[in-house]
């Protein structure tokens, strides 16, 4: 019994320590954004890696999600003779929820695993120690550009994802339901305007739709850097770090999405 308690105690300590290390890494990565030296070249390279190179999968995901949303909603809405609201439904779902979450999950799979594998390989081949001995803070050099690039690029990818999804919905509405495009886009616009405004001009849907990818970008990049920089045990360790990154960041995205939605709804409704 006492052995079990000791083991639980050790496990609890280890978990608390891991959480502390995660948030310390998060804090340092974010605070170094404003500290010299600025690794601009690394930032641009990471923006290309995280943003531009993820464009393909985000475009595909967005297009087909928008199309399937329009298709499913058209079946339901036809029952009530309300197919003209397909645009509202697709826009609301894409901008508030599916755009940010799907872009986040796609980037977690493609970019998060890549970051963890790269940093993990650097760790097991002593390149991280080499950076330290050359007088460079590995967090500033490796984590900060990746976190900042994810913070910038994930909202951009999400906007593209939303737009392509709504266009996909338009294609289905126009060619399979027979809804005129002008009507579809008008209902999209109505949806955006109906949610109210923040600071008079910013639609609340946009506030929700852009806050989430910002948080998801931080989650993906910090989780990937955390597992990458903690890698031990050679190539097997790199594989484990990659898997843990994708699983953890995907779960965190879905869980945080719920609480963030609750928070944003309560904040935006009280305005």
């Amino acid at each position, binding site marked *: 019994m006492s052995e079990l308690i000791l083991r639980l105690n050790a496990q609890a300590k280890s978990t608390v320590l891991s959480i502390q290390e995660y948030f310390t890494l998060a804090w340092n990565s974010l605070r170094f954004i404003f500290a010299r030296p600025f690794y601009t070249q690394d930032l641009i390279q990471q923006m290309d890696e995280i943003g531009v190179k993820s464009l393909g999968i985000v475009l595909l995901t967005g297009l087909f999600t928008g199309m399937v949303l329009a298709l499913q909603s058209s079946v339901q809405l036809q029952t009530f003779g309300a197919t003209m609201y397909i645009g509202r439904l697709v826009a609301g779902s894409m901008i508030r929820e599916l755009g940010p979450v799907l872009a986040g999950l796609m980037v977690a799979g493609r970019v998060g695993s890549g970051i963890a594998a790269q940093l993990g390989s650097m760790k097991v081949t002593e390149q991280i*120690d080499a950076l330290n*001995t050359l007088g460079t803070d590995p967090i500033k050099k490796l984590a900060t550009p990746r976190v900042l690039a994810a913070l910038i690029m994930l909202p951009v990818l999400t906007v593209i994802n939303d737009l392509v999804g709504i266009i996909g919905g338009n294609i289905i509405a126009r060619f399979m339901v027979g809804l005129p495009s002008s009507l579809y886009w008008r209902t999209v616009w109505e949806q955006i305007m109906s949610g109210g405004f923040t600071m008079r001009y910013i639609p609340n849907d946009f506030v929700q739709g852009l806050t989430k990818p910002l948080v998801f970008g931080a989650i993906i990049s910090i989780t990937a850097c955390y597992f990458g920089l903690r890698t031990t045990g050679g190539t097997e360790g790199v594989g484990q770090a990659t898997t843990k990154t994708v699983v953890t960041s995907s779960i965190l995205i879905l869980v945080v999405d719920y609480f963030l939605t609750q928070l944003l709804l309560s904040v935006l409704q009280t305005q």
Partner: protein
Amino acid sequence: MTETRRKEDRASGSIRAAIRKELAEDAQQDNIDGIDTDNVEGRPVIEIEEVSLAFDQPILEDITLSAKEGETIVIVGESGTGKSTALKLILRLLVPEKGRVLIDGEDITHLSFEEALKVRQKMGMVFQGAALFDSLTVFENIAYPLREHTDLDEDQIEERVRQKLQFVDLEPDEVMEKLPSELSGGMRKRVGIARGLANDPEIMLYDEPTSGLDPLTTGTITRLIMKLQRELKVTSIVVSHDIRSVFKMATKVALLHDHKIVFFGTPEEMSAAEDQYIRAFLGQT
């Protein structure tokens, strides 16, 4: 004295004789005056004072050693005795639980992370696997510390990189644009040394610089470390398993056993030592 003991004595005597003979031959072959093991005068550059470190179990216990300016201290010992950990303490990548580590008289034990980064700029480190940045070319690898910590313009950086590559006997035009993956093991080690030297450090640390290399390349790397000591008067700490290289380059040898230093002295003193463990270590190696 038993027959077994007499056989052991004869064996260790012949090992010592072989080492002395090899040393003399190497000095002749390399046309090197040899390393002056007795008369290294100067201020202590690295001091490790009664340092202990443990994680789940003890790693180092009451370690004390010092390196004067221009000395090459070689740390030897069986695997897992904490040799590489000693290097990490000097680099302040690890903090001892007890004792002090002084660099140029400054206690680095309680420095902040940022202060430690500055102290590390006085040091060059050569890793076991070279640890070159695999996404950067050889030129970019060596230029890295210069771009990070100096105000040199690109022409000056290129000149310095060429100079360091020539020092490690590599032809700059042939290797500068290559990626580390395109180099042989020995070349990678030499580029690692060139990168460590880029900032003209006063201290060089080597973690198993000759491991995994063929005998000829091992000789080349050993001669390179000796050249550094001779021409640049760099203070060096070398962790090595290769006893032949150790006896060639060391001004002093520290033998780690059971997390403690059981011998600290010149190679000659080591080869003449009567201690059972030292004799066994030399024999086994």
